[in-house]
């Protein structure tokens, strides 16, 4: 439709088509869901129409020009094959990541069970853009749980494929393979690529936007500005940080001759692709970026999210997610801190961006210096500008310093760094140390990926015992079989372990500061209020952590109010182990006791 196919190599044609199709699929599921047609029939029609439309992508001429790898190329291909096996093993296992079970997969499942998209008045896990998760819904509805895990694997690999074909515009075959291999084995990609996390898949949209922005600047043609806007809009539809990317890519798009026309078309396409979830938030809360502007724009009549609780939540959340000061020195020190001393940062270390940036830094810097006269004419300057500007806006304006939130721009960073470093060594100079750091990166990351995969290998080699796998990998799962067997759909259980939501077959409520319907701050509640609020939301049972050492009772301070009043009846006790790492289970295995309790009738208050 955009008439850009003549500009594309075969690989680019297919990889870019997948990326755009991925965004379009997520976009189309939204109106189907909001209209209340989330069931097998409409989703089959949707997927069939998409599959038939794929015929239009057919190209004349050679489908694919097979490469002729040299020895290094074959080694890299074999290593990529190994990574494929690792990822496939993960795809064949049940999902076990906490965020995935809490909402990436749990929310699509909730929508499917309801047959429609309902508004979930909850920050972080509910009222956020779900563009990528919408693509999980057809797989979940028409396939099975495994269809979704394999879909996340395929879509993660599609990102690596697009990175490879875009790299080929600037790099040789082997360097492009190496860039893809470094990407696939980056700790944050190992962690998120095969689970429900969205960042790895969002990188598809970033690459579409970046490539199209380059072409829009080079050709001044409006169709590329539209494509860039679609990429930025799909990112915005998938995560709030997409708004930052839309702003910086819009800025880059307008720095050209036809800035007004291209800028307008970029903005229009971005709005069309990205508006849905923001409008959905406005409709239900008044705040398009719930809860960030809620204190100013939010409705006052929301009993489930009063403004006093909103302020409390934000103070707690932003404080805990941003341990480093947002200052200019830290803007430049942050990558080094996150790479070498990540302990204070949420998620870094085992879910970081790996050593590649650090190791290749002097090579890339020298490469840029050597070709400083040509840099301003390079199309990669756009990639670098997009990545850097996004990083700056994310650092100062983002809600969380979790390093994996930078994964969407990681492919742009990898391409720029690899090209700059590669140029330095074109004549053979300094090739030895550069090859050493690339080999070291791949070795370290591949070893990490191999260790990560052992868990899945054990699952498959041990006869794919699902229950044993989940007991081993999901905190507090030990109570789930009993709950699913003994409670019914008319019950509702209060849980303190959000990762259980996906596997529970009965209604549940995650008790945390992410909800205000049950006040859990001891100084803000009392026995009667707590009891009334629990009953108001239909709670019949509670699954509570039993901390035997607590001085004032075995549960949390608030839940002890119910316990002391005799409002709780113990139905079952489950002994488990708290898992700190699924990959290295012996890293920390502290005993963990859970009590399954029934909430008695109101007579306990007398």
């Amino acid at each position, binding site marked *: 439709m955009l008439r850009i196919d003549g500009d594309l190599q075969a690989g680019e044609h297919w990889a870019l088509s997948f990326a755009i199709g991925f965004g379009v699929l997520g976009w189309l599921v939204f109106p189907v869901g909001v209209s209340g047609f989330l069931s097998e029939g409409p989703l089959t029609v949707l997927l069939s129409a998409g599959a038939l439309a794929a015929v239009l992508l057919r190209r004349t001429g050679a489908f694919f020009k097979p490469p002729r790898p040299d020895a290094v190329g074959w080694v890299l291909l074999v290593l990529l094959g190994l990574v494929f096996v690792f990822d496939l093993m993960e795809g064949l296992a049940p999902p076990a990541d906490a965020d995935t079970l809490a909402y990436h997969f749990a929310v699509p499942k909730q929508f499917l069970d309801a047959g429609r998209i309902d508004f979930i008045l909850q920050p972080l896990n509910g009222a956020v853009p779900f563009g990528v998760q919408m693509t999980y819904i057809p797989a979940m509805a028409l396939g099975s749980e495994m269809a979704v895990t394999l879909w996340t694997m395929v879509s993660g690999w599609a990102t690596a494929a697009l990175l490879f074909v875009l790299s080929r515009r600037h790099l040789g075959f082997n360097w492009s393979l190496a860039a893809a291999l470094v990407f696939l084995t980056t700790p944050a990609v190992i962690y998120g690529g095969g689970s429900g996390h969205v960042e790895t898949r969002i990188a598809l949209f970033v690459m579409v936007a970046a490539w199209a922005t380059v072409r829009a600047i080079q050709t001044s043609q409006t169709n590329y500005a539209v494509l860039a806007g679609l990429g930025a809009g799909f990112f915005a539809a998938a995560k709030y940080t997409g708004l930052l990317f839309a702003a910086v890519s819009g800025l880059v798009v307008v720095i050209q001759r036809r800035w007004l026309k291209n800028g307008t078309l970029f903005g229009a396409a971005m709005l069309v692709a990205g508006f849905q979830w923001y409008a959905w938030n406005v409709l239900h809360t008044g705040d398009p970026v719930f809860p960030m502007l809620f204190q100013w724009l939010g409705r006052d009549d929301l009993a489930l999210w009063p403004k006093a609780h909103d302020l409390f939540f934000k103070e707690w959340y932003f404080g805990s997610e941003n341990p480093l000061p947002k200052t200019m020195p830290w803007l430049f020190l942050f990558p080094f801190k996150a790479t070498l001393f990540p302990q204070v940062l949420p998620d870094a270390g085992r879910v970081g961006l790996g050593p590649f940036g650090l190791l290749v830094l002097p090579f890339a810097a020298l490469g840029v210096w050597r070709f400083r006269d040509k840099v301003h004419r390079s199309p990669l300057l756009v990639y670098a500008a997009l990545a850097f500007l996004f990083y700056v806006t994310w650092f100062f304006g983002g809600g969380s310093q979790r390093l994996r939130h930078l994964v969407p721009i990681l492919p742009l960073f990898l391409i720029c760094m690899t090209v700059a470093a590669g140029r330095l060594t074109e004549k053979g*100079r300094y090739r030895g*140390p550069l090859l050493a*750091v690339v080999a070291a990166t791949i070795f*370290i990351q591949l070893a990490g990926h191999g260790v990560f995969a052992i868990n899945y290998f054990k699952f498959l080699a041990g006869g794919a015992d699902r229950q044993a796998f989940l007991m081993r990998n999901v905190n507090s799962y030990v109570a789930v079989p009993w709950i699913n067997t003994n409670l019914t759909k008319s019950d509702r259980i209060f849980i303190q372990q959000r990762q259980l939501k996906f596997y529970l077959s009965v209604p549940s409520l995650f008790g945390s500061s992410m909800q205000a319907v049950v006040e859990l701050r001891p100084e803000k509640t009392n026995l009667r209020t707590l009891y009334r609020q629990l009953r108001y939301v239909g709670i019949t049972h509670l699954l509570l952590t039993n901390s035997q050492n607590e001085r004032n009772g075995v549960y949390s301070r608030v839940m002890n109010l119910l316990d002391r009043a005799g409002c709780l009846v113990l139905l079952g006790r489950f002994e488990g182990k708290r898992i700190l*790492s699924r990959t290295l289970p012996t890293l920390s295995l502290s005993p963990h006791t859970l009590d399954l309790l029934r909430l008695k009738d109101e007579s306990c208050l007398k």
Partner: protein
Amino acid sequence: MNKKRVLNGVLWFWAVASTLAYAHQFQGFVRPLLELLGLS
């Protein structure tokens, strides 16, 4: 020529030092890894 040899040496030093600096943070994982592999 001498300048290039020095720079080559500096880059080799960076390659080794930064790799070790990065890997250093994972030393706490050695024991759990050996236990995972049944070697401890």
